[in-house]
């Protein structure tokens, strides 16, 4: 691979913008239930139309995650998942699908590993970027520098509660994309969309041309389609993680995820 992760990420956003659509970025926790199954689930989702992936490195005290992803983290850790094994999954998924992989976790595992070492090893594993759920712009500088040095991208968050002053500071920090929190609350499926995304995306766009990726509370094809109209990328997590947890085997999970991702992609293309 000659391009850096950051470049592949930039190209993804340029491509979807030129095609007037949003990238579909499914999330799964690494290692539910094991490395090989994880890889085959991501491969199935790639075949069904995913544009890239978010791979969660499990953390046992996930303050931004609801019960489904928290349970997935507990199960993955109980099954022996580690940062190094998650890198292995990222490497295999990147190699076999050719699609950009974003790694998502919390501050402490990255800090404990060492931000520079973590970014370098993530880059070596082919990762395109890093998302840290409990890292606001004020504390992000060392992590932004580390990912930049390693040639991978990094996200910063904006939420419906984020003020315009904060949005300006977030854009000024020059993240690869802004993770726009579409719903007030932790990750998880909700029957109704919150309607908060449109206003947030407008406020970000008024400040900056930075790509916007929407996530949190986006689970149904209809919600994904509606988010796609507001953003450059859409992350669907809990709805897919739940299917992976409910499936009795890796094969059953891969089938369920293939069908779910295909429905999401179709709805995003239809626009409803």
């Amino acid at each position, binding site marked *: 691979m000659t391009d850096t992760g950051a470049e592949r990420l930039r190209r993804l956003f340029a491509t979807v913008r030129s095609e007037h659509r949003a990238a579909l970025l499914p999330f799964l926790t690494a290692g539910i239930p094991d490395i090989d199954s994880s890889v085959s689930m991501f491969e199935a989702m790639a075949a069904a139309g995913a544009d890239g992936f978010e791979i969660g490195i499990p953390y*046992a005290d996930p303050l931004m995650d609801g019960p489904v992803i928290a349970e997935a983290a507990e199960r993955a850790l109980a099954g022996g998942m580690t940062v190094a094994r998650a890198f292995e999954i990222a490497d295999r998924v990147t190699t076999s699908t050719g699609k950009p992989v974003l790694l998502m976790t919390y501050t402490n595992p990255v800090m404990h590993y060492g931000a520079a070492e973590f970014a370098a090893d993530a880059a070596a594993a082919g990762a395109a970027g890093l998302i840290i759920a409990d890292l606001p712009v004020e504390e992000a500088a060392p992590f932004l520098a580390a990912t930049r040095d390693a040639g991978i991208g990094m996200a910063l968050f904006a939420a419906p509660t*984020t003020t315009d002053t904060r949005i300006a500071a977030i854009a000024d920090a020059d993240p690869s994309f802004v993770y726009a*929190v579409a719903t007030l*609350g932790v990750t998880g499926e909700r029957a109704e969309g919150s309607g908060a995304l449109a206003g947030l995306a407008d406020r970000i766009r008024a400040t900056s041309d930075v790509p916007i990726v929407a996530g949190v509370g986006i689970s149904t094809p209809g919600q994904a389609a509606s988010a796609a109209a507001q953003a450059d990328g859409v992350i669907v997590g809990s709805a897919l993680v739940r299917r992976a947890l409910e499936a009795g085997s890796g094969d059953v999970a891969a089938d369920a995820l293939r069908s779910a991702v295909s429905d999401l992609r179709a709805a995003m293309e239809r626009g409803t």
Partner: protein
Amino acid sequence: MTTGPDESGRFGAYGGRYAPETLMPALEQLEAAFTAAWNDRDFRSELSELLSTYVGRPTPVFHARRLSESLGFDLWLKREDLAHTGAHKINNTMGQALLAKRMGKPRVIAETGAGQHGVATATACALLGLDCVVYMGEKDIERQALNVYRMHLLGAEVIPVSSGAGTLKDAVSEAMRDWVGSVEDTHYIIGSVVGPHPFPWMVREFQRVIGDEMHSQLHGAAEPDVVVACVGGGSNSIGAFATYLDDDVELVGVEAGGYGLGTGKHGASLIEGSPGVIHGSFTYLLQDDEGQVLEAHSISAGLDYPGVGPEHAAYRDAGAVRYDSVTDDEAIEALHLLSRTEGIIPALESAHAVAWVVREAPSLIGKNVAIVLSGRGDKDVMQIAALDD
């Protein structure tokens, strides 16, 4: 020694704000609201009035004469156990509940370990007419049934937390998750000097009444040479130490030694932990090689926490405070000792400070020693009784 924090919420290297973006505007709002309130004479006098007429402050300092005689030095007890609801926790909850009201937030959430902070929060909310939801680990609900019922009587809803080990750490995480979704109308009354800025600073300011009172009560002949307090998150200790940091007084923070250091079953994050992020703050914590937070252990639910306030982390590195630990067994023995010799049943948390003084007595001869007796032991009586069987 500076008492910080700086503008970024740091005490030296420690503290800061490692919180989901959704909460950041609320943390900024809270910092501004607390700063304004703390400089507002009306707010301060309303709080002082409540602390004296409702909480029962100042709490007395008592000369523990029988124990002093047997130990061979003068021992003083700052009687936070005599504050309304039975512990120092109410100093903080009265302040934060008043602040919630001032910010126009009608709903309050809190976490609790031993239940003392939950009861103190429920009490302040009942007094001020705020809705109150308390998150409590399932294991703690079991070992602190009395406090659960007290919270119900006070009109609070207690939500059991089953994740992790079902103790204080998990209750804090669950309260923060609630806050991520409810932040617009809800204030989170955190119970110790932990969490993202401005909590460690704000809670210290609400608790420093402990040290300020001690200072005037012990002024003169009884000026302490040593001030001892237990450290879980570290709020009663910081409340006392804040006053004495610049004085020539030895400050001792006693962590939960559990089954003993080196057993992996303790709550001694300052002694056996390493720096990292827990619950929004950069501080010492118990963690594994992967940066996963480890479960703490202590017989006392209030010290059963794998992190510690960031200001303590700074004092540890600077050597401004001496941190030591006592085991579960030593704490239980001290609870019995204080009960029999002074007629005061201390909380298991506070018994840790007593146990340290008893164990270290030979080195304290001739000194004036003051212990913060942070809470009363009624809540622990059933647990102790079960151990005696």
